[in-house]
């Protein structure tokens, strides 16, 4: 699905990530951890072609991201659902329209039943008509997750999706992601929350990647 081959990245200062070689196999479930500022968000941006690697190759759906046109990138975004760390909505549209936005821009409107079900699943059924500005941080994150999965993407990349949620809601979202993984979706979650990782390991064969000294390694059982 997504493969990193000897990838390096820097924002213009020193190198942030070096020699990263990772393969996210179809149907796999990964966590990505590391200290704040280590480059988790940067790694995700490389994975959905928001950033191009300064060295090495990132391959998404068997295509080198450097060879993608702007339209190709748009198509990649439709197959990769992303929950951004700084969730951004269109502030003039109600939550339901924001969640359905990927369908709207793809010209695939009209799955209203799916939308209602999905909002119910993430506990936002009653807030469908609320404007984003009136939502709490946790509600925004849940809305972002709903928006990321509404297209039925092959891959879901979630950046701190439970950062603002209580444990109960975190578990609920984790369960949703595990269900999606069982349906064959490839999942990667960047998180600091070790409890969440432990909980997930009891539900699914999740692997943990850790950023340390600019490298990304598979963490052992020491978590």
């Amino acid at each position, binding site marked *: 699905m997504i493969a990193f081959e000897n990838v390096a990245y820097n924002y213009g200062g020193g190198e942030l990530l070096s020699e990263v070689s990772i393969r996210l196999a179809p149907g796999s479930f990964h966590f990505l951890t590391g200290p704040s500022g280590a480059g988790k968000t940067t790694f995700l941006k490389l994975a959905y072609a*928001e950033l191009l690697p300064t060295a090495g190759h990132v391959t998404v759906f068997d295509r080198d991201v450097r060879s993608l046109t*702007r*339209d190709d990138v*748009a*198509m*990649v*975004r*439709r197959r990769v659902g*992303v929950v*951004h760390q700084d969730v*951004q*909505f*269109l502030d*003039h*549209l109600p939550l339901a*329209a924001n969640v359905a*936005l*990927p369908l*709207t*821009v*793809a010209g695939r*409107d009209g799955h209203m039943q799916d939308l209602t079900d999905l909002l119910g699943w993430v506990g936002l059924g009653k807030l469908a008509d609320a404007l984003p500005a009136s939502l709490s941080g946790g509600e925004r994150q849940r809305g972002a997750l709903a*928006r990321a999965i509404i*297209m039925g993407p092959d891959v879901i990349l979630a950046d701190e999706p439970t950062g603002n949620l209580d444990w109960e809601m975190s578990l609920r979202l984790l369960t949703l992601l595990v269900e999606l993984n069982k349906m064959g979706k490839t999942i990667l979650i960047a998180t600091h929350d070790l409890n969440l990782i432990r909980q997930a390991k009891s539900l699914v064969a999740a692997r943990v990647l850790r950023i340390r000294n600019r490298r990304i390694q598979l963490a052992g059982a020491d978590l």
Partner: protein
Amino acid sequence: MSVRRSLAAMILPDRQADRVVPPSGPTAWLTTFTAGAMTFLAVFALALSLASGRLAERWAGALAGTATIRIAAPADQMAVQTAAVLDILKTTPGIASARAMTDDEQRALLAPWFGPDLPIEALPIPRLVELTESSDGFDAEGLRQRLLAEAPGAVLDDHTRWQRPLAVAASRLNLLGTLSMALIAATMAAMITLAANASLAANAQVIRVLRLVGAQDDYIAAAFVRRFTLRALTGSAIGAVAGTIGIALLPPVDEAGGFLTGLGFTGLGWFLPLALPPIAAAVALLATRAAAFRKLRELT
């Protein structure tokens, strides 16, 4: 391909797609107003251009026509010199026909100034010989030399001397009218580009979100293009109607103005301002589209 797609997107309103960009910004009225004002001006430039075109055509037509030879001679020599002039003209290449005017004709010519009862026989009025050029034209200077030698009282009055500058002025005016319309279109394109840029900048955040959820550039651009095109079309339609009414209300000058043909439209010309709103819409479409794609590449 993509221009066709955005044309289609413009013609077929897409309510869903229109909603993804916030309803309206501070520049919404600017485009409508600019298109209206520019079209209003364009109607006048169009009328000027058409009127001066007619004028140029008329004068150029008169030029390639006729000339007059004026014979001023003592009464007893008049007949001889007239005959001599007609002889010369017969052998001058480039002259199709020549004819001395009769007394009655000359009286009719002078009537507006001196009244119908002018005793023309008693006055030392020059005799006029009217000649028609053939399509090749004749050598005016050569003819003058021969007249000087053989009929000293005869003077070639070549209309071209005063008509040519008028014809040139008219066709220059025509050119200026056309140029004005081009400038008006360019100004409108520039103003709409500014307005579109302002709107795109104000919506930078919206554009980023749309890109993140997988919107293609065409889709995002179309949302802006559709808006600006419709605004330009509306404004321009109002401007075209107002300008045409303005022209229609001009007092008729056909009689009073003599050689002026009037600034109005004639016949089917009255429908020409109808072509301006679609042109304004096309200008808005292209200007907004170019601005949108530039901004999209800059932002994401």
